[in-house]
């Protein structure tokens, strides 16, 4: 039984690593920032989910499961927000675009 669980861990974590590799490939090869952001956020979230899934059998207590899943959810939240912010910096939404055009010297801090 434990050998089966260990095998599941190895397979899931390897698949997760493969997704991370795919995301990094997208980061290096895609032409512009928005495509790279999409590759990174999608592949990394899925890769992290698979890694967390693979590590669940290795943790003894249900509290540890909550911790691992919380790590995945928090990483999802953070990477989603950061992707939105980076994309907004590259291609601002309409209101911010006018503001950026009128105040070209204004950075993120005033």
């Amino acid at each position: 039984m434990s050998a089966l669980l260990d095998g599941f861990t190895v397979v899931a974590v390897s698949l997760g690593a493969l997704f991370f590799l795919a995301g990094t490939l997208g980061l290096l090869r895609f032409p512009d920032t928005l495509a790279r952001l999409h590759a990174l956020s999608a592949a990394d979230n899925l890769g992290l989910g698979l890694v967390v899934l693979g590590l669940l059998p290795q943790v003894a207590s249900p509290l540890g499961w909550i911790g691992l899943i919380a790590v995945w959810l928090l990483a999802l939240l953070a990477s989603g927000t950061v992707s939105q912010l980076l994309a907004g910096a590259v291609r601002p939404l309409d209101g911010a675009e006018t503001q950026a055009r009128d105040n070209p010297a204004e950075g993120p801090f005033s």
Partner: protein
Amino acid sequence: MTISLVVDIGLALVVLSLALWIIAATTVYRAVIGFIVYGLLLAIVWVRLGAADVALTEAALGGGLTGLLLLGAAARLSHHECVPVFGRPAAGPVVGFRLLVGILCTLIAAGLAAVVLLLPEPAPSLASEVASNLPATGVGNPVTAVLLAYRAIDTLLEAVVLVPAMIGVWSLATDQGWSGRPGFLTPARRTSALTLLAQVLPPVGIVFGIHLFWIGADHPGGKFQAAVVLAAMWALVLLAGLREPPRVGSPPLRLAVVVGPLVFIGIGVSGIWLADAFLAYPAGYAKPMILAIEAVLTLSITVALVFLLAGPPAADRSADGRR
């Protein structure tokens, strides 16, 4: 050559190449982003070295808060750049000087490497003394025992050091801004994504910070890591523009910063009467006193860290939002 050694070699190589990137990057932005990644990888190195408390502190403070500080500085400095001096082909010292400095730095690194390779065997260690006296302190985490029982004087001095650092940052204010609100963490405009994050994450972060503080007695964690997480949540709320930074002159916050070191010193002085030495705890009361010190210090360090991040106080904005 075991698998773990291969992993360690890979990790050390990535860390060294990231350090090379930080030194060799062409713009400050790239160097700072490399530094943030470097801080996070260093946290993994600390886990490999068996120091989980240090890994938590490095990830939160070294990678997170220092990265925030430096990224903000890089953003602000992009507006003020030096005028290049005519006749100087490259920025900074000439190639010959760089070569000489490079050789000397290599020699220094080689000397330190020789020291590392010639460290005495068997390695001297205080771990056995720490372990044998651990039950008397009442805590289960040996690092917490060292920080608050064996070497409490170091922790006291470090908690005190944050106060003059904060005063040093405050002393850089202009005359108009003398007791106003600090300006480094104030955004020029609000974005909906950051607003969402600053509304969803802080409750989770506060619970997590208090959990880190409580669990530091017996497992990796403790007041520094908790204070850094709480300060990060407050900084996030400020960065999203959901709250104004607190006034530097506000008495409750100034009290919050000093109450930690004062309580620590008070308990230390009371130890002279109760247990015959400064910062000694009376037998049987060690754990409650340690917890009391940690709780008050968490509050003080959180406020001090936020004030350190937020910068010198600045003059209030005029009605149209510009200074």
